[in-house]
């Protein structure tokens, strides 16, 4: 433990990142450049999120990491272990008990509180990138609020698929000003972004940090005649019978059988513990798996 400074990064670096975070909070949705450090993991594995988490964690915080909603996937386990070792902080899988939650591709189902921080891992922070490759131009478009191009993408969706088929990383307008990429969360999660917790976004490779303060107005872009829809699979969870949570589809065999389960593992677990049973669940499933 003494081999590392608290939370791996040195204090100067953490101060630099905190300054970027504060600037991001002051200008909701604006991408603040920061001097991203080399982290002991490959780009694309959450280097941005890890740096933001390292800069926000304090020794008495409890830390939770989810990857696609799950606490037990490789990415989540590795990052949790990383901070257990380098920061010696308490970790949890329960959303309710966590102070800082680092996430990849999901917002937890449980409603977050004012004293919690949600840290997103962001691969490509620029929502206009695939339409306009020049960084100089996209910066100018943000500065001058020229966001017509974002609707060109949605237009293309409708003309090709008959509906807005963008289902993740769905662009949003923050507090009536900046258009922001909410990281690759499903669009089902977009309405949840107007929340009491602080949301921080870290893109390590692209060296950008942006933020959404609590209770900020987030509007998903759409057309008057094709309004935004927060879609999910039209099923209930097969383990906990939840109808309101985002579901993963799991292929069971090559006979076409499949099941839908909550992507938020903690939400599913707590519902099963409270006695909810889905189509394929059993009463004593928790004891059986334990």
């Amino acid at each position: 433990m003494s081999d590392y400074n608290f939370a791996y990064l040195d204090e100067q670096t953490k101060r630099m990142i905190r300054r970027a975070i504060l600037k991001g909070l002051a200008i909701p949705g604006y991408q603040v450049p920061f001097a991203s450090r080399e982290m002991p993991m490959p780009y694309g594995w959450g280097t941005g999120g890890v740096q933001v988490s390292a800069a926000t964690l304090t020794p008495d915080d409890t830390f939770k990491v989810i990857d696609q909603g799950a606490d037990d996937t490789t990415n989540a386990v590795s990052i949790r272990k990383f901070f257990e070792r380098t920061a010696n902080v308490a970790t949890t899988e329960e959303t309710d008990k966590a102070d800082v939650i680092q996430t990849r591709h999901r917002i937890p189902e449980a409603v977050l509180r004012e004293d919690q921080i949600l840290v997103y891992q962001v691969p490509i922070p620029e929502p206009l990138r695939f339409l306009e490759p020049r960084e100089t131009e996209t910066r100018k478009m943000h500065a001058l609020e020229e966001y017509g191009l974002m609707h060109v993408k949605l237009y293309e969706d409708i003309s090709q698929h008959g509906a807005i088929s963008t289902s993740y990383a769905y662009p949003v307008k923050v507090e009536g000003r900046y258009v922001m990429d909410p990281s690759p969360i499903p669009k089902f999660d977009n309405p949840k972004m107007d929340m009491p917790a602080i949301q921080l976004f870290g893109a390590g490779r692209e060296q950008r940090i942006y933020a959404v303060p609590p209770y900020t107005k987030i509007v998903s872009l759409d057309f008057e005649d094709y309004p935004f829809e927060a879609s999910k699979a039209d099923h209930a969870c097969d383990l906990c019978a939840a109808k309101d949570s985002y579901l993963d589809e799991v292929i069971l065999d090559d006979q076409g059988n499949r099941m839908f389960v909550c992507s938020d593992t903690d939400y599913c677990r707590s519902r099963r513990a409270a006695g909810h049973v889905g189509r394929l669940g059993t009463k004593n499933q928790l004891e059986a798996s334990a």
Partner: protein
Amino acid sequence: MTPLLQVQGIRKTYGSFVGCTDVSFDLYPGEVMGIVGESGSGKSTLLNCLAGHLPPDQGEVVFDTLADGPVDTVTMSEPERRMLSRTDWAFVHQHARDGLRMSVSAGGNIGERLMAVGDRHYGNIRERAIDWLGRVEIKEDRVDDRPSAFSGGMQQRLQIARNLVTGPRLVFMDEPTGGLDVSVQARLLDLLRGLVREMGLSAIIVTHDLAVVRLLADRLMVMKDGHVVETGLTDQVLDDPQHAYTQLLVSSVLQV
């Protein structure tokens, strides 16, 4: 009548090399002005200065805006200039791929300017895109195809539709027929002439093709080495050239 565009003493140099210098003219509403000259004579530099793509070193470009009357576009703020260039102005590039988004469908290309000025109704945008495809003689069923699947002439026509959809008052064209074969050129010119007359557009057309200006332009400006050497009505300049260079230019056209 107030001129739509008043150009006063435009000069642009690249280091010690003069791009264009001492260019002044007025353009009135509904008028089409041709700028001809050989390669390197500064006509594209001039056009880019006028359209706000390049900052001129000296001079002013006063445009008669709808809201505030005549305003110098060189000194106006960038957001205002960019707003102008997607509402009242249009720019047709020589190469359609410079003016089109090649990865976006034809309908999306036409709709972009509408969405940029705040149209948020998919049905309306699509209807206007299809209407404009018809006006530039592209079949309605190509609306969802990408421009990369179009022929050169179609790409150029699509670029024109994309530019004219917001009803601009001034169109800048840089060699609009360059790189097209003659029969396609003829159709494009016919189309352009129709649109310009029908919409009452003012236009500035840069070209080295004298046939283009003969068909489209009311007035002509001949440039050589960055200077304007002769101006006048198109027929007058082409039929009775005064300056030695203009005489050379006119006599260089092959007769078939």
